[in-house]
């Protein structure tokens, strides 16, 4: 693709919540191993995936994000022992509700990624960006009402 075509092409805005102990360290490892994933992903550090409140996810979509991904330690490896178990249940219910309301379920994702899985982290981010890009701008979560 030529450069200017690159410009007009749709760039998804993706918010990633990474848990400080595993996935944030995994992201750092992906960086130090000079792997690459699109610049559209912006990472917010949280103490644990259990800290991610559904309010943050819906807030991100409200403010224009096209995809939200939550990364945490593998179940059983959580630094706080049970944080990701609760997160897993919360996200399962939340994603099921978003799917129930007709929102494309490719826009949300949970990925368990340990501090040693730099490669997995960058692959996940590449995959997720591709998926969200194919879904296009997040409109459904933006205007479920037909008012103005």
């Amino acid at each position: 693709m030529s450069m200017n075509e690159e410009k007009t092409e749709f760039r998804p805005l993706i918010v990633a919540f990474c848990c400080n102990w595993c996935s944030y360290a995994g992201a750092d490892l992906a960086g130090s191993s000079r792997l690459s994933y699109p610049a559209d992903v912006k990472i917010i550090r949280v103490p644990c995936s259990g800290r991610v409140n559904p309010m943050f996810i819906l807030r991100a979509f409200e403010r224009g994000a096209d995809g939200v991904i939550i990364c945490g330690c593998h179940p059983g490896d959580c630094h706080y022992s049970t944080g990701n178990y609760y997160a897993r249940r919360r996200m399962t219910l939340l994603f099921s509700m978003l799917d129930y309301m007709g929102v494309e379920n490719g826009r949300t994702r949970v990925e368990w990624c340990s501090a040693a899985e730099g490669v997995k982290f960058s692959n996940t981010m590449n995959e997720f960006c591709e998926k969200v890009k194919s879904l296009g701008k997040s409109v459904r979560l933006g205007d479920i009402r037909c008012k103005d």
Partner: protein
Amino acid sequence: MQRIGVFVCHCGTNIAATVDVKKVVELVRFEPGVVFADDYMYMCSEAGQEKIIAAIKEHDLTGLVICSCSPRMHEKTFRACAEKAGLNPYMVEVANIREQCSWIHKDREEATEKAVILARAAIAKVNLNTPLQEGESPVTKRALIIGGGIAGIQTALDIADAGYEVDIVEREPSIGGRMSQFDKTFPTLDCASCILTPKMVEVNQHPNITLYTYSEVEGVSGYVGNFDVKIRKKARSVDMSACTGCGECQAKCPLGKMGKIPSEFDRGLRTRPAIYMPFAQAVPAVPVIDRENCTYFKTGKCGVCAKICPSKAVNYEQEDEIVTVKYGAIVVATGFDIINLDKFGEYAYNESPDVITSIELERLMNASGPTGGHLERMSDHKQPKDIVFIQCVGSRCDDEKGKPYCSKVCCMYTAKHAMLIKDHWPDTNITVFYIDVRTPGKNFDEFYRRAVEQYHVNYVKGQVGKVIPQPDGSLLVQGVDLLDNKQIMKKTDMVVLAAAVEPNKGVRKIATMLTASIDNNDFLTEAHAKLRPVESPTAGIFLSGMAQGPKDIPETVSQAGAAAVKVVGLLAKDKLKTNPCTAKCDPMFCNGCSTCANVCPYGAITYEDQQVRGPGVNETRRVAVVNNALCQGCGACTSACPSGAMDLQGFSNRQITTEVDSICR
């Protein structure tokens, strides 16, 4: 409004290569709250920190944003630097524009734009930061070592010598671990038990060290400085105080003569009685009854050992005992074992008794081993004239059955084996099939060259495709010689496999108990590969020996010493600074519904009736109260709380919301 200073680091070219640092400074200068913005080549350097301290004083800044490498790397540095300038360390935020921006993206414009966004998010967060004071928690002056191999022993001795109480929990009936099974050690050819046994005795006699052998860790709770560990002391069926270690019971046990129970210590090369000590120099020198195989426990008959025991030490009714002990620090020294070779059918390990692993060879060559030190083929007990060593069995293996990593020690111990055999029986013909001979240590390469030049060990660069037991009892080895680029078909008397190492079974269970991070190969992950190799990211948990990764005995001992010093450094403190980013409940909004207490992994939340006063409110309410000493700041309670009453200091709801807002702006 805050007065925020933003410092953007070049990090040499690490950041500056793909991020236009000047432009970032230019764009963040006008974010709300920012009064000063600057950049510098190395923010974490002495000069960089001086610049920060000067700016804090000159512009009397109330908040700092450092755009540099990962906060996991230098957040402590920049917080300490802020503290020096009199600014509360928790008013500092780090934007990760290296590992998560400049190193990841190639396009300069994209990387710069993302760096600005990450900086903006950090600035928005600092705007809402509040000064936090670190709390204090007491330190139990006692350490726990899980695993009694050379790593555990050395760590325990170093800590005990520093004057602190240490407990070792060892799963086997005796300490000593893998090393007690070795014959000689490289590169000095010291006899393994000669250098290990004195240390084992020293551990047993050291006033500060308590041994829990034939015991396992059942549960761990609490946090750095205040661990509560439940230890299960499995019943030995022998009263340790009474037993003199005379060994009568071992000799008279009927099952010993019948030779049915394979001895784990001798890797199954010989058998042992039901009541046994794993090896002669076992510490503690007290036998254990193997309840699975002992006739008395299976059918209620026999009982010979109880009858003949001179000091009446045998006690069949002994029960498992669980003790709970408080510790300040825990060291994981769970060691390693050889991988299971069932999936490596090509080497016929399970078909022919003459195909053995290197550790079995250690037992054969050991004077106290099954053959009393005579090297024999297990099939016809003849001395082998021709031996083939195969390297990297299961190591550096890219498919599922093996391990992707190099086990680091096999090249050296194979060279050792070759030299020792050549030394005792010079006419033995030895061939070693290798991919690369790795000798990365002091006197290692000289040691290996002696084996080649002085002892004429035949090293063949190439792998072995198949080992086929022949009808005449010999073994046909099909390999390839890459240097001469030709097939090799070689008959030999014995094949020794240098099998890959892997962490001991059960280490994952222990890691889960300790909430220590662990990688896919079950090696424990260190806090930082280069800067903190002996600490787990979980505070108060330390790593020693093979549990952290493949290494030889010299490295294990040095790592054990390092872990010991870290533990001593921790136990030396009377008070530990606790993480102030803990949860806090706002009584005005709390419903007292106990949802948060149900999800708190540390039991840090209790309930009180408090008098709540506010506009239109004046009543006593059942309100949650967080015990800051127990709370580790995971935040599970904050997202379980519907009304937002429970909030996490340092990562509050509004802070994360404002980060989301500024990213999506």
